[in-house]
């Protein structure tokens, strides 16, 4: 007899469904549904009380209508009424309706909670399970508040039925995930761990999910689960396929539970206890051995179940990364799977090998499979598998095989699926940079990339090649020659024109000796592409032309001719027109000397994290590119550019050593501005060529009125104070990032004025609409700071970035930070978040150099008790002198050398510029390396300033 009896169906329901299915058109279907909705509504509203059966029938109809994609805005009350029915069928359909249709913030929750409470205390296991299911499905905070105390009790009570225990375990897990603060650890926690030993395998299966989640959050409290899990696993692995009866799935004993046990063990390091570890290693070996045995069944289910365990075992081996013997075996096993006829296994093998490639024990072993992987990239029919192959090639790449791998990836790019091209391009660009031994190879590779997949080459990639060419003079001539050749192709990608324009504008002189690439030939070549390009590229080309005038005076008249033509000087695009006018004027009135200064070769870029790597990370989401990889990228990048300085600290130091010029920072948001802007005007003039952002930055171009700053009582994100602290000692970086949005920040301050550039990046592929931002000054800050923000584009395309400029004037000293509220719609859902803008009082510091004598004299003058603020605090970071110096410089004060008699101490001096007054401040930081403590003393002419500075700084060291 079938378990579901079909004879007792509801006739009305069946007829309705048949009607819908017989509808010939969408319109007819909608008509029928609306008729039915009206009917149900009138029945529910009618005077006659409906019996349980009718209610059930109508609720079923509503469920069906909902599945078809129609909104259901009534019937909830009737469903709630069904919950209190004594009949199982009615109760059950009520719960079903609520699970499917009621979301967590419904007002009905209180009524529902009441019904659940009754059912939980009914001692009827079926009703209890229904109630537990409902809690797990809705999982709202109100439910957690009501039941988080009760469910652990049900879970560990001795007389609870097994099926109820299972439901209770998963119900508790759900509540723990949604409201961890409400699920209090207690006496039950130790008993939960012992459910791993439960007789009933179903209970273990459900409990292990709960235990895994709890262990991830509180590893120490649940440590005992390791030995229990190992012994349970060992019993399953060594059991014969018949021992576990119903839990044996196609001859594999308890595959699901085994996988979960192996996952749980991955939350912990290898067991310390020798006996436990020995037992576990034995298990892992048995699992690896079983893989070599002939299959007990030809069914795919058998091999799936067996291999599911095997893959989890391999993951655990990789996670431990401490048993070279097992690692090599794992690698060999995966190698076998790489050639397996099952696509699923090839996919998983490629994926697991990716993680294996990062282990030092197995990296070499993984590399031996390179030919197979390349072959997979070329021949796999399935794009998901090819993508895994590309990932693996990326992971196994090192200096020895980089050329081969990059070449293979490049050739694959020509035919690659559109969906993965962009990522492939980024990967090729990163590998080429990371493992470049000679830079001509690097330049070739990137130009090839642009040629093959120009559309997918993001700005970061071509910014980076220019950055490297500028920083390395040994490759400049080669780069100029190569782009010149590449531009000769009749059709070349716009990105190639951009790179070509920039490089020839800077280094065209290096190849001008050859008559085949004489200055005029170069110019004509570039100009032949001009009319095919978009506005930003044209703008860049115009800048290249003016650079040509400086490099090759003989081209001056030709170029002036071009600039003077109506299509330039009267161009409808205001930016192009302005450039044409300005460049023309510049070339005709400036003397050669002035020209040479203004149009000097770009200074080298400071070293920084590769913007490409950042992009890949962003694309793959956090966690996809490991921290190690980033660090490595940074290190390798440093080598590549031959720069002595590297890392954040030097960037901070650098940014303070010179006048910050944010518009010159074109290659990435994460870093400080360049070390020197040789001629500031030339710097920003040429550099803004790179970003449209730069164009609008000029301020005088933008005629839009500033948006009005209004009072808005929004509460900032809880972490916004932390975010604020991050920016005390630096001006640029990523302010905020989540799944959808990244906000980058660049700022510069002069005297009592500041300008901040916010970059809103849409990380998704869906556009954000009605994007609005408001900056407010809460409370008394309103009278202390004057903040004006320019309106921002209301629409951000997927993957695009928009910029907002905020002007800040400091009227008098302040302690709070302005709030930035961001609202937009993403896929229909309104997103709303509030952050603190990192504007802190120290930004308005003007460094003051003074000798030892002067310092102490002033120090003594500021001797009123309220003028001094002092804090003694523990070091949060390593006490590295260089880092400390960089941070103090970042603060904006002058760091005074040879002032303090104790060379370990730091003293600084500066004046805070506000509109109302100037506040002189002195600072002394005394590190105590032994105790890992600092004493920080700040004295300034105003007590509030001393206090605020002290607060801000105490979080920095």
């Amino acid at each position, binding site marked *: 007899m079938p378990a579901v*009896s079909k004879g007792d169906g509801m006739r009305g329901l069946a007829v309705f469904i048949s009607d819908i299915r017989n509808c010939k058109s969408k319109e007819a279907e909608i008509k029928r549904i609306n008729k039915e909705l009206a009917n149900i509504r009138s029945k529910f509203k009618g005077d006659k009380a409906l019996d349980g059966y009718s209610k059930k029938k109508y609720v079923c109809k509503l469920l069906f209508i909902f599945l*078809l*994609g129609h909104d259901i805005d009534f019937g909830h009350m009737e469903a709630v009424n069904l919950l209190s029915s004594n009949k*199982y069928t009615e109760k059950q359909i009520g719960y079903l309706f609520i699970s499917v249709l009621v979301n967590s913030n419904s007002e009905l929750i209180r009524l529902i909670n009441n019904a659940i409470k009754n059912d939980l205390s009914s001692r009827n296991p079926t009703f209890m399970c229904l109630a537990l299911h409902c809690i797990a499905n809705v999982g709202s905070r109100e439910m957690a508040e009501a039941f988080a105390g009760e469910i652990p009790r049900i879970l560990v009570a001795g007389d609870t039925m097994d099926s109820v225990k299972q439901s209770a375990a998963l119900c508790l897990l759900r509540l723990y995930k949604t409201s961890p603060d409400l699920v209090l650890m207690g006496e039950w926690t130790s008993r939960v761990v012992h459910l791993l030993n439960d007789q009933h395998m179903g209970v273990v299966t459900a409990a292990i999910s709960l235990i895994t989640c709890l262990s991830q959050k509180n590893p120490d409290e649940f440590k005992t689960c390791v030995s229990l899990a190992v012994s349970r696993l060992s019993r399953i692995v060594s059991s014969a396929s018949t021992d576990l009866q119903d839990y044996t799935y196609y001859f594999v004993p308890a595959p699901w539970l085994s996988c979960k046990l192996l*996952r749980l063990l991955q939350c912990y390091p290898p067991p310390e206890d020798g006996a436990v570890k020995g037992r576990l290693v034995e298990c892992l070996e048995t699992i690896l051995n079983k893989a070599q045995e002939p299959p007990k069944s030809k069914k795919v289910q058998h091999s799936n179940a067996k291999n599911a365990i095997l893959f989890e075992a391999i993951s655990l081996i990789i996670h431990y990364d401490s048993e070279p013997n097992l690692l090599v075996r794992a690698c060999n096993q995966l190698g076998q799977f790489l050639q397996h006829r099952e696509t699923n296994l090839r996919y998983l093998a490629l994926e697991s090998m990716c993680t294996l490639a990062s282990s030092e024990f197995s990296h070499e072993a993984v590399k031996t499979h390179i030919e197979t992987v390349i072959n997979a990239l070329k021949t796999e029919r399935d794009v998901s*598998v090819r993508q895994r192959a590309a990932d693996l090639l990326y992971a196994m790449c090192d200096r020895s095989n980089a050329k081969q791998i990059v070449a293979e990836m490049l050739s694959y790019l020509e035919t690659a699926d559109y969906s993965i091209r962009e990522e492939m391009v980024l990967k090729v660009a990163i590998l080429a940079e990371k493992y470049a031994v000679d830079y001509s190879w690097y330049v070739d590779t990137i130009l090839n990339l642009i040629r093959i997949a120009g559309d997918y080459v993001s700005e970061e990639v071509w910014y980076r090649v220019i950055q490297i060419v500028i920083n390395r003079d040994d490759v400049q001539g080669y780069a100029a020659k190569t782009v010149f050749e590449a531009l000769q192709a009749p059709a070349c990608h716009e990105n190639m024109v951009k790179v070509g324009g920039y490089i020839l504008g800077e280094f065209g002189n290096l190849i001008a000796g050859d008559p085949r690439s004489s200055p005029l030939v170069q110019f004509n070549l570039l100009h032949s592409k001009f009319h095919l390009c978009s506005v930003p590229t044209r703008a860049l080309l115009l800048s290249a032309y003016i650079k040509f005038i400086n490099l090759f005076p003989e081209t001056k008249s030709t170029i002036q001719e071009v600039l003077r033509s109506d299509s330039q000087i009267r161009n409808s695009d205001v930016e192009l027109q302005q450039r044409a006018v300005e460049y023309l004027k510049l070339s005709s009135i400036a003397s050669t000397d002035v020209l040479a200064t203004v149009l000097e070769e770009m200074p080298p870029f400071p070293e920084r994290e590769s913007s490409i790597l950042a992009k890949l990370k962003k694309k793959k989401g956090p966690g996809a590119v490991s921290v190690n990889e980033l660090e490595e990228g940074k290190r390798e990048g440093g080598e590549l550019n031959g720069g002595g300085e590297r890392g954040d600290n030097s960037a901070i130091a650098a940014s303070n050593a010179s006048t910050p010029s944010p518009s010159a920072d074109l290659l990435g948001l994460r870093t400080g501005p360049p070390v020197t802007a040789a001629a500031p005007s030339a710097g920003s003039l040429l550099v803004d060529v790179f970003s449209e952002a730069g164009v609008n930055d000029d301020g005088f171009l933008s005629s839009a009125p500033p948006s009005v700053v209004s009072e808005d009582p929004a509460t900032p994100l809880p972490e916004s104070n932390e975010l604020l602290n991050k920016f005390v000692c630096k001006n640029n970086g990523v302010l905020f990032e989540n799944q959808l949005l990244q906000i980058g920040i660049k700022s510069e301050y002069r005297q009592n004025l500041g300008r901040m550039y916010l970059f809103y990046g849409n990380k998704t592929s869906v556009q954000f609409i009605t994007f609005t931002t408001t900056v407010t000054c809460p409370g008394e800050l309103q009278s202390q700071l004057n903040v004006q923000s320019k309106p921002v584009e209301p629409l951000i395309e997927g993957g695009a970035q928009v910029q907002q400029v905020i002007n800040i004037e400091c009227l008098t000293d302040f302690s709070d930070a302005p709030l930035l509220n961001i609202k937009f719609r993403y896929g229909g859902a309104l997103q709303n978040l509030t952050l603190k803008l990192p504007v802190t009082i120290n930004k308005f510091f003007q460094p003051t150099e003074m000798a030892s004598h002067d310092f102490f004299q002033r120090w003594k003058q500021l001797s009123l008790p309220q003028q001094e603020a002092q804090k003694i605090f523990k070091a949060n970071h390593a006490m590295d002198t260089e880092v400390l110096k960089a941070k103090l410089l970042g603060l904006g004060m002058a760091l005074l050398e040879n002032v303090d008699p104790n060379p370990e101490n730091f003293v600084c001096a500066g004046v805070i510029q506000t509109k109302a007054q100037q506040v002189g401040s002195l600072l002394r930081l005394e590190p105590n390396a032994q105790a890992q403590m600092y004493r920080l003393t700040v004295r300034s002419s105003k007590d509030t300033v001393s206090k605020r500075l002290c607060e801000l700084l105490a979080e920095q060291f």
Partner: protein
Amino acid sequence: MIKAILIFNNHGKPRMSKFYEHYTEDTEQQIIRETFHLVSKRDENVCNFLEGGLLIGGSENKLIYRHYATLYFVFCVDSSESELGILDLIQVFVETLDKCFENVCELDLIFHLDKVHNILAEMVMGGMVLETNMSEIITQVEAQGKMEKSETLTLLFIWQSMRQSQASRFSSKIS
């Protein structure tokens, strides 16, 4: 964790959807469409895993699916689940449906949506696996069936006659 379980037919008509994370109704429908679009364009005999659509979390999540005759069974899961394990789970689910409905076909899912939900609820709860043992699941479902029987009057056998006339159009055999 399992984020969603979707069943739709070869034309993308949803036959059952169960989300274990909260989305708006609109987004749910969009996810179903997006998933159908991703899955249906794939050849037979390619691998059963692919990266999830953007609406349901992109590459953080995987879609693991099987195609049985007229129906696609798609589980959307995060990285904490074993791919092959989920593949087995789909098989257990389908075999259970097959046992409970005797040779299940698409029509059974249409006319007994509530029962499909009940069967699923015996296997998966709040996105986590509750039970994998088929006979245990069937025992529970049978017990519910009996309770139902004792409560409801047996109505007409309309369903069966209707099913006989229509079932011939669908040929879904579970391997």
